[in-house]
């Protein structure tokens, strides 16, 4: 008998975006409130895991055609690149800079290179969790 997961799938469709929004919030709020790249990344991958539970692996691979191993590499590049960028300005490795910038849409915004570093962390955490779960899941 074929199971019908229509309730689960529908609920997933709604909650998925809420979880992703929450994780993005956690990520961006990290510098001022509890949160940050690590927990944000875990939350995002939690959302993808929910998708995996509701649908099968192939469907998720169609929806999100991402090789998570590359994501790990990109994340590491972000972090290391942020650190190495400081060298261009004759500052020690991993020196961060921050300032308030007037952006066209967002108005007065505080920008901080630590966010770029945290983006690296975020991407690596998603990549790592998803690689592990996918690899174990695909294993027979």
């Amino acid at each position: 008998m074929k199971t019908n997961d229509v309730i689960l799938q529908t609920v997933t469709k709604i909650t998925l975006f809420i979880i992703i929004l929450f994780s993005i919030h956690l990520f961006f709020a990290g510098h001022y409130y509890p949160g940050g790249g690590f927990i944000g990344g875990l939350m995002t991958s939690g959302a993808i895991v929910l998708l995996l539970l509701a649908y099968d692996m192939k469907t998720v691979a169609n929806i999100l055609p991402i090789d998570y191993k590359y994501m790990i590499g990109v994340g590491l590049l972000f972090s290391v690149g942020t650190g190495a960028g400081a060298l261009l300005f004759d500052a020690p490795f991993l020196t961060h800079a921050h300032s308030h910038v007037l952006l066209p849409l967002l108005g007065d915004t505080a920008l901080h290179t630590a966010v770029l570093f945290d983006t690296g962390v975020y991407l690596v955490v998603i990549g790592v969790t998803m690689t592990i779960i996918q690899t174990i899941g695909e294993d027979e």
Partner: protein
Amino acid sequence: MSLLHIAIISPFLLAILVPIFYKLFKQVHTGWFVLPLPILLFSYFISYISNVSHNRITTESISWIPSLGVDFIAKVDGLGLLFALLITGIGSLVVLYSIYYLGKDKEQLNTFYVYLLLFMGAMLGVVLSENLIVLYMFWEFTSFSSFLLIGYWYHREKSRYGAQKSMIITVFGGLSMLGGIILLYLMTGTFNISEIAAQSSEILNHSLFIPALLCILLGAFTKSAQFPFHIWLPDAMEAPTPVSAYLHSATMVKAGIYLVARLSPVFAESGVWLWLVAGFGIITLFWGSFSAVKQTDLKGILAFSTVSQLGMIMSLLGIGAAALHYPSIDDSFYTVATTAAVFHLINHATFKGSLFMVVGIVDHETGTRDIRRLGGLMSFMPITFTLALIGTFSMAGLPPFNGFLSKEMFFTGMVRVLEMDIFNLETWGLLFPILAWVASVFTFIYSMRLVFKTFTGKYQPEQMKKKPHEAPLGMLIPPIILASLVIIFGLFPNILSHHLIAPVMASILPSLLNDSKEFVVHISFWHGPTIELFMTLGVIAIGVVLYTTFPKWKSMYDLHPEKLTLNRFYDRGLDLVQNGSFKLTKTYMNGFIRTYLVYIFTFFILIIGASLFMKDAFVVKTNNLAPIGLYEVVLALLIVVASITILFAKSRLTSIILLGAVGYIVALFFVLFRAPDLALTQLVIESVSVSLFLLCFYHLPKLKREESRIGFKLTNALISVGVGVVVTLVALSSHSNKLFESISQYYIENTYEKAAGKNMVNVILVDFRGFDTMFEICVLAIAALGIFAMIKLRLTRRKEG
């Protein structure tokens, strides 16, 4: 770099070229290319004689490691020159002999001459080095090259056994000698022998003096095959005969003698030195000659004979040290022992070298060395027989050969021990002449057996592999030269005394030579009807009687059971060490991780616990404790209950769930102690790990999936309780011992000021200490790729299909 240095290292340089000669000139025996070098060196060292006989010492120095006080200083004095002449002179003869002994089609000549040249250079280095570290380097070179030469026919098992045995014993002694050298350096601050000797009276009462003496003597005794380390020498007879003649009779085994003589100025004042050197020497002399009689292999007889003669020289050097304690009496009276040692050193090299070559000829021409198969060769090999006769009669101490003179002087030295009144010599000293006399009787017997059992008696052609005939002339020249030296030194001993023996004695006993005096050495052939002469007559008389009745008392040797021999002891010891270490390793390295964990935790408890109490580090202070709230108590109770339940849970599923519970309670603790970031992370990570545990649980193999409690083991319980207690004690005392204020105030003040953030934890993670975070994400990346690789790359499964 002076000419002297070039002379010392020239054999090493030639050794590089030997394989080239071997490859390029196949039709010429490689030995001819080697032969000129030792002859050249010999004539070079001859030119030093006039210098040395006027007590002029040549010293040349190149710096090697000046910061450690190690320089390659070459020094030619009497002692060094005597050895250098022996090495190069007998070296030339041995090379000539080996050209005829080793066929150029059958043998690997290139390796043979490379090893031989390595040995020659190393030996020259040993005897001409002033610096002890350089001496030690060359010393080990001799051990290695000797190892290679003994194992020259490496396809024979006995060669390999003999090579290994000599290596183990001599390197053991060599290392102990290195220890002695370092102790000497600690006492004197220099590695140079003459500088050490200059301080000898100051270090005499130093606490390291006796250990240094023992270490050095251990090195000398193992190298020179003294009792009980002589056992390697008979097994080294598996080497080709030129090697036995060169290394194991004339040169390498005398390296220990050289060391004792060279360091006599440093140690000889001490009574321990006299007793050890003389005592071990005389025991070796007796034991070597006693064992030589029962040998049936010609080289076996010669090996034990070498052991015994080395013991004789050693004991003479020991007794010679007594002369230092009688400065007032006419010094020629007590120095006779040292003179005898030096003289016999030369004599032994001549007659033993020629005897080995003779034995090699017999082996080469008949195919056997077994004394029971040989006999009646006199008419086939008249020249060889004459040479053997000269050699053995000299060895037995018969006139008119040089062995007679040195044996007389040996008796004189031993008899004079009776007149000494130092170091208890008046009570136990009587043993020296008695043992010396008995040993000489045995020496006489084996010498006669060696020559008469081989060359006279019944000729047994069926026992021999080849039809015996006289050796080629080239093979006979070296022993002829040596045998004629035996006669020349026997008839005209004083050609040596002024030019060679006196300077050598000046090197051994320098402190007796004040006011530019010189040793006057005069060896007289006829010294009147003294007690020594009667001792020699007694040796001959008793020896002849015992030799003729040998078959009757031969069974005496069977009284000594095979089980108690030193060889058996060595073999057993080696076995014991190997099996013992194997068994020991097998007991504690049993392959179970649980056992290793027991070791690790036991050591943890012992080391941390002991240092906690031995350093009085355990303190409990209650003044800076925070008040305990109700929530903390409740959570603590919960976590304790959960942890204990894990231990007694029957099903693994329960354990996993309980572990999850512990994790969530920890998250609650984080909430309670105001760590929101930690709480968030802990919650998510705990969920992930619990699901991974469940995954593992689900895939357990069905066969072994029994549901059972953890078995109770007292050791495990004790160790886990111990670890818990130790960690708790450490935590309590470290909390009570806060030495500094925390640096967290800086972060509180500067999180917004400098880093423009309000979440201090995150700012520390990405900004203040972002470097750590960078590598932690690297750790995560490696873990993910590791899991991916482990699961995807299953090479064995792919192979199986």
